[in-house]
């Protein structure tokens, strides 16, 4: 059954979309990841124009983050003060990101930049996940050799000005740190159509030193607003948000996430995390391969002036 999507201006098989949305939703339920970093490249693979894939995915991530953020908020796992600082950075970064996006689109470079961002970040994140999975697998085979980590390390980052106290995270650090992380992830969110949790979460743990209990909730909290900002600005500047496509993906991924959550609690997480890492790497390799392989047609056209 094919459905014509008004902004993507193409008809896509709905069953294929439901399978993709459901599959990525399952993974996000299992691992607590947003799934945008897999969904955007998958949409591009099935022929959705990259700019539309990015705008639409940002819209879908808003929906995906809301239910997760609400659940964490109810359990008190959101550091609102930290969230607001990240959010300020996120607004600045994502607004700047959409501005760059619009410029690059006019020049005809947006597709390549989207692909390069995905190759880079899927490669890094997938690689780290596989390495982490392998390390914990080795560790589990030779017990007693777990490396001891210092609870709190002092680095140059602790010498920065504008120190603030974050009670919920038990931190006293410079506001510039979360602000700059927010800006960086905001730019990526705008260009790649992702929530950016896959960068935000490790950055919060390793760079800021936040306790893991509040990391996911706080990240989801700020992702809602940053992706909402991206959705709004992409709609205004580029008209690349397809609400119909987003809705199909939202419905399928919400259902998939519930199945994934139920599954995830029964399975061993280390091996699964390594498997997800392999999947992420595979998608990254496919994006990279498409950049290197000689294209079937060298020419492309775009209507200028438009509407």
């Amino acid at each position: 059954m094919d459905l014509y999507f008004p902004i993507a201006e193409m008809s896509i098989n709905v069953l294929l979309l439901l399978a993709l949305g459901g599959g990525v939703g399952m993974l996000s339920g299992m691992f607590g990841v947003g799934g945008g970093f897999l969904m955007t490249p998958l949409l591009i693979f099935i022929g959705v124009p990259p700019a539309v894939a990015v705008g639409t995915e940002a819209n879908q991530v808003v929906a995906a983050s809301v239910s997760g953020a609400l659940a964490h908020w109810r359990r008190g796992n959101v550091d609102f003060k930290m969230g607001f600082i990240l959010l300020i950075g996120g607004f600045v970064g994502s607004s700047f990101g959409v501005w760059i996006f619009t410029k690059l689109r006019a020049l005809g470079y947006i597709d390549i930049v989207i692909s390069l961002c995905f190759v880079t970040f899927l490669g890094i994140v997938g690689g780290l996940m596989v390495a982490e999975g392998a390390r914990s697998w080795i560790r589990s085979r030779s017990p007693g050799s777990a490396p001891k980590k210092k609870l709190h390390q002092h680095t140059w980052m602790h010498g920065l000005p504008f120190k603030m106290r974050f009670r919920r995270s038990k931190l006293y650090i410079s506001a510039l740190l979360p602000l700059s992380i927010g800006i960086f992830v905001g730019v990526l969110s705008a260009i790649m159509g992702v929530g950016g949790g896959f960068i935000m979460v490790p950055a919060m743990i390793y760079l800021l030193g936040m306790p893991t209990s509040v990391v996911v909730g706080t990240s989801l909290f700020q992702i809602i607003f940053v992706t909402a900002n991206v959705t709004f600005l992409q709609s205004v500047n580029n008209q690349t948000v397809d609400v119909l496509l987003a809705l199909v993906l939202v419905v399928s991924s919400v259902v998939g996430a519930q199945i994934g959550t139920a599954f995830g609690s029964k399975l061993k997480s280390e091996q699964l995390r390594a498997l997800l890492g392999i999947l992420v790497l595979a998608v990254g390799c496919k994006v990279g391969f498409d950049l290197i392989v000689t294209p079937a047609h060298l020419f492309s056209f775009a209507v200028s002036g438009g509407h």
Partner: protein
Amino acid sequence: MTSIKRLLSAFLMVPFAPASALASALVVDLSSNQIEITTNFTGTNLLLFGAIDRKGDVVVVVRGPRRTEVVRRKERVAGIWINRAAVTFESVPGYNFVASSRPLEQIASEETLQRLQIGSERLRLQPVGSANSALASSFRKGLIDLKKRKALYTDMPGNVSIRSEKLFRADLNFPSNVPTGSYTAEIYHFDGGKPASVNRTQLSVQKAGVEEAIYNYAHDHSAIYGIVAILIALFAGWLGGVIFRKA
């Protein structure tokens, strides 16, 4: 069944049509003058039919809305393929469909075909500005090839069937990626290599229903569209959470 009725009436009109010494009487009609792109649109066919009053060849040319298009060519830079050179062409038909009763070359001289721009390869596409002519011609060829691959430009020799040297019909194919706007169908009756008569008819391709509403809203009220998109997502996310928390 209306198309059969129309075909019949088209046929019956022929004897009453005034025929001048040179011009032939050419009557045509389309099974529909409007293509609506709705939610389940996957491309469509229209039937074009008509009658000629003496033997000859029939050529059907359907052209879509003309737009300015930027054509870009990828080049390998540091191992990856990137859009580099660009040439802008003015008034490029978004759709160009040519059907004929015989191969075009057998119907009329190259000069005539060029003059009437019949056949995708004969479209006059003007580059904007002072583009290098060799570059412009390679980009023009690239654009036409690409449009053919996307089924937006089609040449179908033999796709017009003529019966008893009088009635003719042709199937016009519109793919799912057909651009919206107003289209012109030109029907030529060639007699002895010369266009004896030409008839024009208009048709339009439009998004309809939900498709039209969403597309127009996204372009005409983009700020409200963005806010509504966010509200729908917030509501859907919240609803999903509520439904599955209770289940």
